[in-house]
C-alpha cells in the first residue's frame, strides 16, 4: 500500500518526533549536565554548565559507598541473569517442544507472577528474609529478581525456541551426531541470539530495580546503586550531594544506553518475537 507523504506531512511528523524525543531526553540530559557542574553553579538553572568539572565523578569513585554499590549491582544482576536465563531456557524448551500435563498451567502461573504487583510482596518478603537470615545479603536480592525475571525469560525464550526448526535436530542425528553434538553444533548456534537477547532484557530488569533494593537491604553489604543513591552524602557531610548523585546516575545509566544502542534490533525482536512471524 502506498502511503502519500507530502512534505508537509513529513514536517509535521518530524516535529512531533522531535517533541517526543526532547520530552524523553531532557531529564536525562539535565542529570548529565548537573553531574558536570561545580557545587557553586549547581543551582544556576543553566542547561550547559558554565564551569565543567569531573569532581563529582572523582568523588563517587573515591567513596567506598558507591564503588561497593556498583560491585553489588553488577554481581547481583549478573548472577540473577545467569540463573534466570538457564532456568528460563529449560522451561522454554519444555514449553516449546514437549507436550506435558500442566503446560498451560505453567504458562498461566508464570504470566500471573509477571503481573503481580511487586510492592505487595515487599513486606512479606522482608519478614521471610529476616527469618531465613538472608535479609541484606546478595541471595536476598537475587532470589526475588529471579522470581520476577523468570516469566520474562520464559516468554521471550519460548518465542525464540518456537522459531527453531526442530527437523534440524533430527537431520543432525541422521547425519551421525549424538544428542550432545546435535545440540552444540546445530541447535545452540541458532538459539544463541535468543539467549543473548533474553539475558540483556533480564539484566536490565535487575539492574534498574529500586523497590526490592531499597526494602530488602540495610547496609552497604548488598545495597545496589539505585538504592545507594538515596543514601549519598557527598564528599563531606556538609556538602550538597546532588552533583555526586547525578554523576552516579549517569554512571549506571550509560551501560544501559550503550547496551540498547548496540543491541537495539535484537532487543526489539526479543520483545516482539512471536507477535509476527519473522
Amino acid at each position: 500500500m502506498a502511503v502519500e507523504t507530502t512534505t508537509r506531512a513529513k514536517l509535521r511528523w518530524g516535529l512531533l518526533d522531535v517533541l517526543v524525543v526532547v520530552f524523553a531526553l531532557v531529564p536525562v540530559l539535565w542529570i548529565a549536565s548537573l553531574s558536570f557542574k561545580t557545587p557553586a553553579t549547581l543551582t544556576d538553572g543553566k542547561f550547559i554548565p558554565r564551569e565543567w568539572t569531573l569532581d563529582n565523578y572523582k568523588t563517587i569513585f573515591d567513596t567506598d559507598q558507591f564503588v561497593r554499590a556498583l560491585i553489588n549491582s553488577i554481581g547481583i544482576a549478573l548472577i540473577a541473569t545467569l540463573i534466570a536465563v538457564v532456568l528460563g531456557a529449560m522451561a522454554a524448551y519444555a514449553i516449546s517442544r514437549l507436550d506435558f500435563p500442566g503446560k498451560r498451567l505453567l504458562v498461566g502461573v508464570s504470566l500471573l507472577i509477571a503481573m503481580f504487583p511487586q510492592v505487595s510482596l515487599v513486606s512479606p518478603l522482608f519478614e521471610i528474609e529476616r527469618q531465613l537470615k538472608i535479609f541484606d545479603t546478595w541471595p536476598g536480592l537475587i532470589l526475588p529478581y529471579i522470581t520476577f525475571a523468570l516469566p520474562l525469560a520464559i516468554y521471550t525464550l519460548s518465542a525464540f525456541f518456537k522459531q527453531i526448526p526442530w527437523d534440524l535436530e533430527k537431520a543432525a542425528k541422521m547425519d551421525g551426531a549424538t544428542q550432545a553434538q546435535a545440540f552444540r553444533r546445530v541447535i545452540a548456534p541458532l538459539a544463541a541470539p535468543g539467549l543473548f537477547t533474553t539475558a540483556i532484557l533480564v539484566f536490565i530488569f535487575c539492574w534498574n530495580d529500586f523497590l526490592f533494593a531499597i526494602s530488602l537491604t540495610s547496609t552497604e553489604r548488598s545495597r545496589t546503586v539505585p538504592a545507594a543513591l538515596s543514601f549519598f552524602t557527598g564528599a563531606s557531610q556538609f556538602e550538597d550531594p546532588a552533583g555526586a548523585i547525578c554523576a552516579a546516575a549517569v554512571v549506571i545509566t550509560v551501560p544501559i544506553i550503550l547496551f540498547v544502542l548496540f543491541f537495539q534490533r535484537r532487543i526489539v525482536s526479543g520483545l516482539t518475537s512471536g507477535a509476527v512471524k519473522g
Partner: protein
Amino acid sequence: MADIVLDKVSKSFPDGTVAVQDVDLEIADGEFVILVGPSGCGKSTTLNMIAGLEDISSGELRIGGQRVNDKAPRDRDIAMVFQSYALYPNMTVRENMAFPLRLAKLDKETINAKVDEAAKVLELTPLLDRKPANLSGGQRQRVAMGRAIVRQPKAFLMDEPLSNLDAKLRVQMRTVVSRLQKQLGTTTVYVTHDQTEAMTLGDRVVIMRGGAVQQVGPPQELYDHPRNLFVAGFIGSPSMNFLHAAVQDGGLHTALGDVPLGDRVRRELEAADAPRELILGIRPEHFEDAELVDDDTRRRGLEFEAPADIVESMGSDKYVYFTVEGEKASAAELEELAADAGAADFAGAGGNLVTRLSAESPVTEGQTRRVWFNLEKIHLFDPSTGRNLTLHEGRAAGALAD
C-alpha cells in the same frame, strides 16, 4: 548397502494413537520402494522408525540382516532427506554437505573431494559458498540430496522430498531422484502422498491406509490388479469410476445396463454371506466410442448411451465426462479417498463417469453418445470389506471369467 526388513512393525503413540499396524515389508538391497497413501496414514511414522527417530512399539526392524530396533540413528548408517530440507541455516552449502563427513571424522582432503564430487553430480558447484537462505527451493532440495549422498550410506530415506516444489520443478526433480538412485544403486525408501510420483518413481509401491499396508507391488501390478477398493481408487489419474451394482438373477444391474457375470464371480456370489450389492469399478481408458469399436472387440463389452457433459481434447485422446443416472456407489473407502483428494480430483463415486476415448471420436459437448466399455477390465468390489471379487490368484480377470 543393505536390505531392510520390517517384521510386524507397529507404532502406538503415548496418547493412544496407533499410527502403524503390523507392517511386514522386505526391501531388497538396491531397491527403490515408495510408501504412498493419504495424509495421516502412517508413512512418516514408518519412515521415522526405519530411521531411528521414533521408537518401534513392537515388531522387529532389520537392516542388512541385523536387528536395529534399539540402535540410535547414527549407528544405523542411513541418510534422510526431509520435506522441509532441514538445511543448517548457519552453515554454507559446503559445510552442510560436509557435516556428516566431519562427524564421521574423515580428514579434510577426503571431505573436500567427496563434497566436490557430490556437488558436481547435483550441479551445486557454483553454490558451495552460499548460505541456504540465499538458495531457491529447487537448489535447497538438491543440497539436501547432496548431504544425503556424500557419505554413501546403506540406505536413503526420503519423506516427501519434492512436495514443497512447484509442479514443473517437481517433475524435473523426479527424474533427478530417479537417475541418482539408479546410478548409486542404494536402497531407497521414498514417502509421498502423490500417486503419480509413486507410479513413476519406484520399483515397488507400498500402499498404506490407516497405518496398515493395503498392497505391495510394482506400479503396473497395483494399477491392473488392485486387491481392494482403496488401492483401486487411490492409484490412477483420473481415478477409476465406481458404480453401484445390484446382484440380480445371475447378473448385475448397473447404471450402464445389465452386466452378465462369468461362472467364477457367480459362484462367489452364491455363498450364503455373499453381498447382494457390489461396487463396479472401471478405469477411464476401458471405455470407447461405440462407433470406433470393431465387431470382435464389441462382443467383449457392453454399450450404453449417455449425454456428454464435458469434452477435453488432449490431442492423443479425449477425456469425456458423462452423466449417468442411478444409485451412487458408497463405501467408507470411497469417502476417504474423496476427502483426501479434495473431491474435485476424485470424481470416481459420483454420478459422473470419466472416460478416455480415442481422439478420432466425433463426440461433442451436450451430445448423447453411444459408448462401449470392456467387461474384461471390470472390477467388482464388496462394499463392506472392499475386497476385489474379480481377483483370482492376484490377477484381475474381469466380470466374465469362467
